[in-house]
């Protein structure tokens, strides 16, 4: 049943520009570095920071921020397919359980975000090779900084999917998303317990993996809260 529902979700994604956004997000993150390195290459050379490690750090400074924006946009898109055309009724009148509808939306989103993170790893590797640094390519770091933020952002994904499916007016979830983006932008100033800080992989113990564990644990928690709320609501 889930397989069929996933097929349906992907069908609904067609011709909405969503695949373009999935490509544009990671491309945008790396192209900001293209501009950065295009303008300031001499400065990096002068500082002695023209190497892979600094490059990976530079890329990962923008990632959390782009990731949260991506989550806000994609979840709202996914929910608005039913919300703005008032077709929840039709969808839920089918002989399917509600939890599987919610799960298939979540899985689709997760799949799109994994594609985006993989593209980020590929793009940052390619541009790094083009920049021709002297030291060895840190494959593990590139993969780590492309995928850790995604796992750390799972609570945000759960929250956004929850509010955009249960609130019909998409202005509100997007507004919550914008506040999250602002918090993610100020990640280094906000306390560790705010979920919007986690994708930055920064915490007082300097251990990025902690954010990943928190993200997975709380992410699953928020997912279930959202799903149970979705199941119990009346269909408008």
């Amino acid at each position, binding site marked *: 049943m889930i397989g069929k529902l996933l097929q349906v979700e992907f069908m609904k994604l067609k011709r909405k520009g969503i695949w373009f956004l999935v490509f544009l997000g990671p491309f*945008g993150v790396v192209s900001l570095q293209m501009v950065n390195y295009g303008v300031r290459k001499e400065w990096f050379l002068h500082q002695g920071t023209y190497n892979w490690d600094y490059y990976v750090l530079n890329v990962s400074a923008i990632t959390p921020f782009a990731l949260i*924006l991506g989550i806000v*946009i994609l979840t*709202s898109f996914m929910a608005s397919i039913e919300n703005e055309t008032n077709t929840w009724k039709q969808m839920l009148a089918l002989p399917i359980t509600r939890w599987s509808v919610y799960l298939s939306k979540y899985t689709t989103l997760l799949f799109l975000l994994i594609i985006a993170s993989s593209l980020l790893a590929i793009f940052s590797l390619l541009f790094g090779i083009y920049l021709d640094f002297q030291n060895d390519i840190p494959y593990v770091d590139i993969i780590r900084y492309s995928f850790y933020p995604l796992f750390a952002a799972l609570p945000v994904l759960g929250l956004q999917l929850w509010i955009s499916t249960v609130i019909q*007016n998409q*202005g509100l979830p997007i507004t919550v998303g*914008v*506040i999250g983006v*602002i918090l993610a*932008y100020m990640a280094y100033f906000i306390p560790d317990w705010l979920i919007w800080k986690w994708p930055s992989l920064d915490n007082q113990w300097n251990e990025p993996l902690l954010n990943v564990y928190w993200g997975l644990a709380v992410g699953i928690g928020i997912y279930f809260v959202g799903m149970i709320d979705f199941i119990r609501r009346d269909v408008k």
Partner: protein
Amino acid sequence: MFTLFQAEWFKLRKTNILPILFTGPIVGILIGLFANTDMFPDEANQWTGLLLVMNLTYALLFLPLVTGILAATICRYEHQAGGWKQLLSLPVSREQVFVTKYFLLVFLILVIQLLYFLSFTSVGLVRGLTDTFPMAIVWKSIVGGWIATFPLAALQLWMSTMFKSFAASFSVNVIFTLPAILAINSAKFGPYYPWAQPFSMMYVGGDTTDVFFIPWEQLLTVVGGSFLVFFIGGYIYFKRKPI
């Protein structure tokens, strides 16, 4: 025309606009609470320092993004269940509808700016700032930021009349807003990028002798020019839009 404003007002009251308007001060307070103002020398005015730090994030990201949300919100009623048809079958011209919606949007942004002003003052009071309040600088910043959103509002209104989905018009907004982070760091490109103008107009460190923080030529050509392009584009699109 007046009755159109009235109609918009009635619709607005049922649109859940208040939570969106109040994000302005909420974001202001969040930034004000978490931001670090220790970097300024002691002789600098504390209020100006606080305004500078708060405006960094507020004007660069929040203001352009919320403009788009408001634009999509005021078009929401019409996108649902054939609202455009109903509205335009009334004895009003499409031009009037577009202009009314634009004025309403700009008015809402002004409300957000004023609420932000309130949150700025409260953050300062909570922090117990004792310096004299730099009234002229603060108002220059608040009104300047407002004027700088005029072209952005015009483009977002255009996008919101075009797309039914919030997410679609919001992604257009994001795509243009994010490069502003880079643009403000560039002396060559920054002054010409419309999405960087709210930041420049609210940036307290700018030239304080003029009426606003950016030169008149830049205000008229970049803000005025992009306003004309986006407004006329949206206006023509809306006039010909098949309903």
